[in-house]
């Protein structure tokens, strides 16, 4: 049994690495898209223009209130079913684009609520102090509120971002060739290996290792910002 494991390992390892690369790509693309989009959505939900905040709040409710897996399916298949055209492009690239869009929208809505909490948690007196010193609204946000907001949201954001690491596995539902897909392929049969369940188990090592790195990174960020209190 050990001999067979040693024989399978290099093949499985190489495949899982390829899958993990796709997982990492989805993770970083989601962050790059969702971090700024979330801020825009947060401002939308806090807008004093009622129709805008109502629309944004409804979108947040839909996105947070339904499973990401369903959102992936709808986003990927719906355009093709209704308009008869695949807007996402062919093959793996198309699946990756669709998955990225679904993840960015989904995570932006969660981030938006965290941002909103962070912004509204900054005492009103901070903005007032900025205002009487002659700063305009933009300067108040970027020079005063932003840094205090970031400090406040590091713990909830690290939570959400570590969840994202594992949530990328949901893209398996539209057959994106990420880590879970790669592990599962040896169950169905691939490269002469079939019925092997251990590669699936082994994928957990990747997720654990990656979230360990993120955990260290976030505690470093927290430490770096400990020079001031909010």
């Amino acid at each position, binding site marked *: 049994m050990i001999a067979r494991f040693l024989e399978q390992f290099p093949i499985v390892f190489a495949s899982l690495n390829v899958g993990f690369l796709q997982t990492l790509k989805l993770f970083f693309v989601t962050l790059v898209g969702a971090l700024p989009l979330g801020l825009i959505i947060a401002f939308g939900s806090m807008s004093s223009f009622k129709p805008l905040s109502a629309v944004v709040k409804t979108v947040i409710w839909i996105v947070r209130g339904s499973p990401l897996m369903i959102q992936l399916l709808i986003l990927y298949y719906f355009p093709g079913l209704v308009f008869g055209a695949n807007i996402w492009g062919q093959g793996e690239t198309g699946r990756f684009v669709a998955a990225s869009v679904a993840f960015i929208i989904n995570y932006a809505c969660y981030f938006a609520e965290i941002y909103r909490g962070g912004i509204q948690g900054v005492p009103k007196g901070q903005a007032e102090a*900025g205002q009487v*010193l002659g700063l305009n609204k933009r300067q108040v946000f970027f020079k005063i509120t932003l840094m205090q907001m970031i400090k406040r949201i590091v713990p909830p954001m690290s939570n959400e971002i570590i969840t994202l690491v594992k949530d990328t596995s949901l893209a398996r539902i539209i057959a994106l060739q990420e880590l879970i897909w790669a592990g599962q392929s040896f169950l169905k049969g691939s490269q002469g290996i079939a019925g092997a369940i251990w590669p699936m188990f082994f994928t957990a090592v990747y997720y654990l290792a990656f979230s360990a790195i993120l955990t260290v990174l976030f505690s470093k960020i927290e430490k770096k910002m400990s020079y*001031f209190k909010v």
Partner: protein
Amino acid sequence: MSILNVEKLTKSFGDVEVLKGVSFSLEEGEVLSVIGSSGGGKTTLLRCINFLETPDTGRITVEGKTAFEGDPSRVNEKQYTPFIDRNVQHSLGLVFQQFNLFPQYSVLGNLTLAPRLAAKKREDFKTAKKEIYAEIDEKALSILKATGLSEKKDNYPCQLSGGQQQRVAIARALMLSPAILCFDEPTSALDPELTGEVLKVIRELRESGHTMIIVTHELEFARRVSDKIIFMANGLIEEMGTPDEIFENPKSEKTRSFIQTDYLSAN
């Protein structure tokens, strides 16, 4: 010409009329204290002068320029918006009860933030950025020296005592050389043993000729530092006069009873 003129100022929050027509004026170099029990409208008056609240009607003039004008006969019209010129804020400084220092900046950073941002509007900013910033730093250091905070310039607000924080807040307001410096209950959030150092700074500012409005509960301090005292009650100026007039010989029964309960019990 008065440096500040407030005429028939009114302000309501919903159904609650907080200011019911307040008028007074302030001359250059004068120190005005506003006293009165909580809920009398003192803080709202100060916040209206500093644009943190928009009054409903009346007029505010700062250094001859109209800062606010709201016509009482038109205030109920839907389309009517009162006139506001926020540029006048340049002439005003405000020190808050809760200090409101920016926690992520050092003491020096708190002082230089606004002047540095304001300097970006100068025409020579691009060519002389270094010199302008050095000038601002130099001014900040000299103000810190005057307020006894030189050694704290690199500290962050969380490392300072309440009294030190409030002195930094005063120094920060002075950076923009306001024509009128306003204080909103500057010692109310401080432990009793820390109020002295803040009051000392305010007294020194008076000696160097600053025009100031001080909303305060420190009656003995108000009496000693002010040229003029306003006693506010129920959104109106109940009585206005010199410290001696207010404290020795109040005309209004309300003033008398306020001063007796609040002042005599403390002494």
